[in-house]
């Protein structure tokens, strides 16, 4: 029994196939299907039929080919013509194309970066939120904390049916981890990405677990999950599950699972996760409303009305902490961050995990990308219109021959399309070349595979078609509106054409360029200002060792620290040695609440434990009182404050604070023995922090060594030698403090570089536009110039004549750009705690630069024309 071929394929064939071909094609295919069915069975024959239909799906079979062949031919013609016109004037066309290419390249690069930034944390279950906390002191915001109290998660889960689950992360897993391998060698590393987490960590987030059951790996005490690369560090290729790993030399943990390395676009970046139950004195901390070191994430029922829920959460701590708050004069408010928003919208949050914040930067860059693209299109419009004069005769002839206006417009749009199309293709090539260069130069990684993402692909299509329309329509209408009679007669447009659209475009371009240039100068100035500002302490020639954390017993580390100190002090290249719990440039997690006899309530103040050498070595000036002294036993109960802390506690002067007591009546009282000058713990983006210094006892996080040599290499080697003898169980981990501190400016330096290059591109493209306009005018004024020369005008005079028109445009754009950029610059500076002044200098410098560049652009073309022998220009007619 014969079965007909698959219906949809047959229909598809009938749909695309031209009517004059359907007989032979469909006939042959059906006949083949008929015979094949007998040989191969109906399924196979059907597949063959489909395959054949697909193979016939080609232009020669299409019906449109016949009915619309005229238009298709015209289109082909347009394309051919487009290429010819491109070749006829290569300089012009290349300038035109390169402007577009540059604009699109910038736009693509920035889009890739922005899409990368937006893609953060998009792989977690939806409805996951981070609970964060704003802290108020006397109703004034005193801090925004990302970690919260351990009880918050529990309370949310118990009190609100909307909360389905919660997990807590405690960031205390940093330090030395070590493993004894088979050869008896101790493999040890200082880990900086270690945390403790609740057992349901893996069910809350979208991280892959390669080995182990996600519900069980963190359920037992002393269990640890390693990332793939961490497992490799300690265990090589062997299976780590079930093996022991030692934390800080004193706690033995069992590896219970291996997780895939975290993707780059995750704000969480962990190498080691220990079960929270492994903490010393573990407890659910059900009623702990004071210890805010727990990053808390909750999963909310998808049906929940988030505004309502947020309001409920906002009030939670007002009720739970009522008593304490009333006594201390503080309040806290919880709020929720949707996990995908964390990366971009955590500006101003303290103690955050990962480098978050930067939505402003993303918006800023997007705006720049868009502006540059607009400039490039404007440029295209300008240059294409400038070509109008040269092509007016072509258009005139075409019109005379009988070409419709509509067709002419299509022709010019086709040309615009070709430009945009090839510009995009070339730009993609440039992007691929630029990505590794950028990541080398400013350490900004861009993922080239994002080029294949849906957003970019759609964007490219929109870019090509939208760009063609935007940039092609105006020239098309201008070019086609020429009256053939006038054009063919030869005279049209005078140099003193009215103040037109193109002049406006140039003003627009230059306004943007000037703003970008002024912005660049300011960005550079601000960075330099921050880096040159006195930090209030000396970070030069200081080698910092990360303190050992792997110990053999109670007082072991303190003893060994003393040993190291005595040995180092005998080393002639060591000028000083000091230990501290924190160093400048490192975020301080240690905070305490203090009150004085007079103060109302408690004040949060940063704490640093230091030894008696600290202030001397870092050259922090003592304002009043005295330094700590090793000989005074009582100094373990002494505190030294900085000036900010004085202000915080309400002391009228440094002298007044001396002898006062912090936390009087408490189990531990602190007597103020000295006051020191403020110094910058972080960059000048941040305000100064109030700090309280205590005399350190026991071991410390950072050992700072002041060197009196510049031969760092040999110094490091010799210190490492000494270290290894004393601390065989701790890795030698060092950095130079000045570099470490300046690394905080990395994002500023990146921003700088990006801004400078884009501003440079913008002005370049704008100059191309100006060049186009000059050429346009000069082209028309050729005869005028010729006649002027014949009558005796000098080259200089003609240059001045031509330059005058453009000077007006540039000055016009300055008038618009200066106030606008002043406003933008003020806005931008508001982000910084320490701001450079904007000053007249920026405007003078920027203005001068723009005028210079514009002048050069104008003179290149006009000089060319004013030098031409008038005989040549006047001969044409």
């Amino acid at each position, binding site marked *: 029994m014969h079965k007909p071929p698959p219906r949809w394929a047959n229909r598809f064939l009938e749909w695309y196939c031209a009517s004059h071909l359907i007989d*032979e094609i469909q006939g042959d295919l059906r*006949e083949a299907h008929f015979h094949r069915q007998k040989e191969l069975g109906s399924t196979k024959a059907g597949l063959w039929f489909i395959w054949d239909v697909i193979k016939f799906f080609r232009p020669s079979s299409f019906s449109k080919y016949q009915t619309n062949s005229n238009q298709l031919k015209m289109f082909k013609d347009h394309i051919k013509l487009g290429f010819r016109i491109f070749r006829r004037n290569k300089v012009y066309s290349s300038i035109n194309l390169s402007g577009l290419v540059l604009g699109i390249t910038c736009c693509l690069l920035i889009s890739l970066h922005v899409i990368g930034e937006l893609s953060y944390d998009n792989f977690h279950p939806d409805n996951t939120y981070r609970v964060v906390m704003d802290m108020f002191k006397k109703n004034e915001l005193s801090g925004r904390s990302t970690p919260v109290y351990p009880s918050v998660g529990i309370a949310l889960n118990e009190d609100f049916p909307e909360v389905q689950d919660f997990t807590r992360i405690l960031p205390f897993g940093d330090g030395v981890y070590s493993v004894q391998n088979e050869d008896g060698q101790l493999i040890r590393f200082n880990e900086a990405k270690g945390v403790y987490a609740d057992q349901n960590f893996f069910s809350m987030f979208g991280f892959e677990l390669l080995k182990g059951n996600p519900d069980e790996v963190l359920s037992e005490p002393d269990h640890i999950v390693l990332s793939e690369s961490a497992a490799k560090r300690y265990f090589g290729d062997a299976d780590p599950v079930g093996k022991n790993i030692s934390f800080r030399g004193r706690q033995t943990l069992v590896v219970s699972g291996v997780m895939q390395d975290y993707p780059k676009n995750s704000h969480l970046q962990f190498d080691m996760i220990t079960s929270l139950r492994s903490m010393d004195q573990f407890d659910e901390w059900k009623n702990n409303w004071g210890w805010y070191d727990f990053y808390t994430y909750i999963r909310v029922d998808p049906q929940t009305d988030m505004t309502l829920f947020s309001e409920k959460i906002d009030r939670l701590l007002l009720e739970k902490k009522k008593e304490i708050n009333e006594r201390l004069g503080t309040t806290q408010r919880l709020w929720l961050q949707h996990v995908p928003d964390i990366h971009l919208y955590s500006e101003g949050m303290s103690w955050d995990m990962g480098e978050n914040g930067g939505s402003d930067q993303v918006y800023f860059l997007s705006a720049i990308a868009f502006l540059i693209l607009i400039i490039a299109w404007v440029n295209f419009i300008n240059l294409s219109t400038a070509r109008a004069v040269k092509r007016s005769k072509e258009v005139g002839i075409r019109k005379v021959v009988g070409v419709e206006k509509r067709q002419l417009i299509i022709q010019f749009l086709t040309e615009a399309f070709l430009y945009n199309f090839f510009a995009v293709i070339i730009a993609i090539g440039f992007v691929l070349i630029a990505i590794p260069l950028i990541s080398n130069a400013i350490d900004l990684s861009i993922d080239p595979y994002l080029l294949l993402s849906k957003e970019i692909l759609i964007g490219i299509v929109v870019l090509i078609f939208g760009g063609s329309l935007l940039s092609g329509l105006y020239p098309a209408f201008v070019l086609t509106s020429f009256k053939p009679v006038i054009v063919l007669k030869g005279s049209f447009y005078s140099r003193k054409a009215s103040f037109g659209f193109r002049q406006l475009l140039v003003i627009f371009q230059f306004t943007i360029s000037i703003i970008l240039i002024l912005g660049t100068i300011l960005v550079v100035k601000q960075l330099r200002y921050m880096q040159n500002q006195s930090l209030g302490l000396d970070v030069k020639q200081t080698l910092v060792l990360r303190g050992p954390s792997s110990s053999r017993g109670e007082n072991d580390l303190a003893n060994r620290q003393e040993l190291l100190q005595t040995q180092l002090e005998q080393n002639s290249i060591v000028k000083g040695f000091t230990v501290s719990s924190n160093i400048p440039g490192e975020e301080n997690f240690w905070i305490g609440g203090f009150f004085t006899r007079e103060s109302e309530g408690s004040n949060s103040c940063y704490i640093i434990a230091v030894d008696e050498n600290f202030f001397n070595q870092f050259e922090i000036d003592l304002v009043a009182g005295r330094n700590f002294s090793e000989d005074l036993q009582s100094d373990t109960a002494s505190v030294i404050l900085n000036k900010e802390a004085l202000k915080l506690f309400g002391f009228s002067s440094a002298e007044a604070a001396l002898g006062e007591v912090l936390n009087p009546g408490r189990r531990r009282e602190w007597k103020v023995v000295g006051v020191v000058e403020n110094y910058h713990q972080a960059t000048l983006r941040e305000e100064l922090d109030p700090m309280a210094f205590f005399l350190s006892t026991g071991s410390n996080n950072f050992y700072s060594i002041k060197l009196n040599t510049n031969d760092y290499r040999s110094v490091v080697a010799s210190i490492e030698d000494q270290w290894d003898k004393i601390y065989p169980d701790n890795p030698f981990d060092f950095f130079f403090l000045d570099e470490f501190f300046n690394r905080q400016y990395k994002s500023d330096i990146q921003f700088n570089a990006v801004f400078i290059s884009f501003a440079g591109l913008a002005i370049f493209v704008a100059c191309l536009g100006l060049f186009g306009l000059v050429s346009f005018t000069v082209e028309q004024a050729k005869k005028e110039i010729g006649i002027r020369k014949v009558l005796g005008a000098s080259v200089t005079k003609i240059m001045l004549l031509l330059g005058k028109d453009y000077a007006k445009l540039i000055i016009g754009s300055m008038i618009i750009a200066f106030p606008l950029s002043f406003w933008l610059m003020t806005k931008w500076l508001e982000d910084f705690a320490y701001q450079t002044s904007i000053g007249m200098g920026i405007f003078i410098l920027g203005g001068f630069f723009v005028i210079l560049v514009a002048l050069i652009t104008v003179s290149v073309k006009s000089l060319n024309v004013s030098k031409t022998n008038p005989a040549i220009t006047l001969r044409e007619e």
Partner: protein
Amino acid sequence: MSKNLGTLEETVLLIVAVIEKEAYGYTVSEEYYKNIGQRISISAVHTVLKRLEKKGYIHSEMGGATKERGGRKKRIFKVTKLGFTTLESIQEARMKLWGMMPKYYTS
């Protein structure tokens, strides 16, 4: 358009010339498989036939419809005079070359 014949074109031209039945897309493709031993798709055959017709080696007319074809007509091809002479001259040239073949290859 060039008047040169490609290998596939030559083969198809030959098939159209020697075929006993009517020569059209399907039969040519079948004949090709029978004699050459390789499958060739009908769409490829159509392309070649069209090209041969354009070069003037074959000409075509519409033939009758059959039931197997779902009532569609055939486009039947016949070799033109030019086609024959071209085939002959190719064959002649080949024979001449074969005649020059050294004996030790053929023996």
